[in-house]
């Protein structure tokens, strides 16, 4: 059965994933927009930096974050100077680490969506008197909506699923940093397979429902749009 400790980990995990997804959308959309519009010679560098988590083992990122956010690291000294705790082994630390780790999963699909729409709708809007801000909010964002939804879902799912980086930076503090994936590992280590089954099975079911819902939503939008008008326009 699901125990209190399990529930605590489940709630913590979703809280983390939700917080991280919201922050990632807020910073990921402008980054993706900049990447798709900029002609800067530094663009490849920034693209590479953002994409690094895709290729690096999570433990590598976790290790460096642990070092930088600790008492002797630059970020650690900064948070100390602000009068805050050191970030490792806190929920805030997990949020920061997850943001960095999941950033490419959110930026990539949004970037693709911005690129796929091309220059034309933006030029059309400009000739219709829309300022760049106006174009961004009323043309680019609505057109990139499918990409933004995909980015959000990927970011959310990826945060729920991460393990290595959490272990490196968050440890295993119940109620503070003990997330589902880590707790599951604990159960397996302790040979408590029944509890492990509940968590693992629940997570699988959850993923299936969310993804199914997402695909259904996409398909419905597609059907609605294509049935809005009888197809006699070719006459």
């Amino acid at each position: 059965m699901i125990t209190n400790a399990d529930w605590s980990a489940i709630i913590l995990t979703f809280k983390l994933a939700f917080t991280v997804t919201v922050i990632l959308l807020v910073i990921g959309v402008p980054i993706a927009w900049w990447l798709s519009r900029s002609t800067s010679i530094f663009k490849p560098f920034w693209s590479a930096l953002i994409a690094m988590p895709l290729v690096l083992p999570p433990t590598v990122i976790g290790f460096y974050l642990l070092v930088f956010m600790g008492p002797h690291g630059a970020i650690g000294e900064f948070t100390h100077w602000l009068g805050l705790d050191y970030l490792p082994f806190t929920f805030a630390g997990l949020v920061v680490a997850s943001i960095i780790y999941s950033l490419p999963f959110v930026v990539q699909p949004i970037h693709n969506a911005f690129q796929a729409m091309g220059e034309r709708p933006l030029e059309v809007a400009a000739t219709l008197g829309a300022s760049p801000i106006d174009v961004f909010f009323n043309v680019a964002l609505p057109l990139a909506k499918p990409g933004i939804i995909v980015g959000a879902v990927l970011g959310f799912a990826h945060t729920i699923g991460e393990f290595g980086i959490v272990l490196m930076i968050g440890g295993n503090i119940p109620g503070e940093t003990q997330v589902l994936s880590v707790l599951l590992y604990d159960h397996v280590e302790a040979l408590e397979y029944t509890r492990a089954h509940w968590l693992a099975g629940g997570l699988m079911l959850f993923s299936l429902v969310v993804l199914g819902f997402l695909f259904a939503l996409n398909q419905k939008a597609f059907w609605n749009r294509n049935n809005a008008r009888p197809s006699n326009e070719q006459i």
Partner: protein
Amino acid sequence: MQRNKALSINIQLPRDNFCLQVEFEFPATGVTAIFGHSGCGKTSLLRCIAGLESSAVSLIQLGSTIWQDKQTYIATHQRSIGYVFQEPSLLPHLRVKNNLKFALKRANAGEPLIQYHEVIELLGLNPVLESYPEQLSGGEKQRVAIACALLINPQILLMDEPLASLDKPRKLEILPFLEKLTRQLNIPILYVTHSTDEVFRLADQVLLLEQGKVAAHGGLAQVFSQINTPALTPLERASVIMGEIIEHDTQWHLMRVRFTGGELWLSDHQFKTFGQANIAKYQEMGNQVRVSVHPKDVSIALEAQQDSSILNILSAIIIDIGKSDEQGFVLIKVQAGPHTSQLNTPQINTLQTKEQPVELLASITARSLHQLNLAIGQLIWVQIKSAALLR
């Protein structure tokens, strides 16, 4: 708001294979066609004017408002333009009515150029208002795009080959709309095209571009009857005649069209089949018509032939003789009109009107030129085998 402001430009834009270099002042009224072959820089020129080519070194000024010079760069959304792209371009995420609203919301201040319901009516948009752009045909999309460009209440309308990406039936569907529009609007319109059909039907003035430079400019008839410009191919050269219907001979199904310097008989069949127009409609519009005559359909005779099947035989004077692009042929430019004596200077003619006399091109063989011993200033007769009604 004062309409009819003249646009003056001095644009330099390096391209891959040439440099666009145009200094020009567009007339403040009417349709100016920017005509040239593919890749001559027409579209780039229009994009520079709209502020869509930021790398151009330009001086662009509409009336007294500077859009661009060394210090100034007014962004596209702040230029008072309406722009119609070559590929029908709308905001794909909005229904047609919301595309129109998008433009309406951001319209320039001042008395509207045209009312919302007028646009809907004129462009026939009522059946498609609830649709998304992807559900429309190319022609429908382009009509919506034109409507948007008008609803923004611009001081100048820029149209980049609005019909080029459409098939023939769609073209014929939109052309009448464009004609109505261009007659109704009192702002300058720049119309980029490589189709002589569209130029002849729509334009008042022409800017002829070749390899990024101005090859010729002026009135429609004047530009297209130029003999010595490589910017026109033999098929594109034509004489455009503006005239007035003065008689309808119902027995022989002929219409009499009078122009400065003569008259033409045209089959009334053309009036009946031409687009949506019919004879009654022409009478409503003051019987004004445009006719084009191809140089190959014009022959020259030294005497008026009485025994010919050709209906239209006009007296004229030779004002220029030039080489044709086709080997063995020459182009003769004549001025129609009842000239009384041999004249050496082309500008003198016996007509009392102030209107530009009609000039016709004739394509004849070099041998005929030699045998008839034709020369500039000579009085001759031109025989016109066929003339096409443009509008």
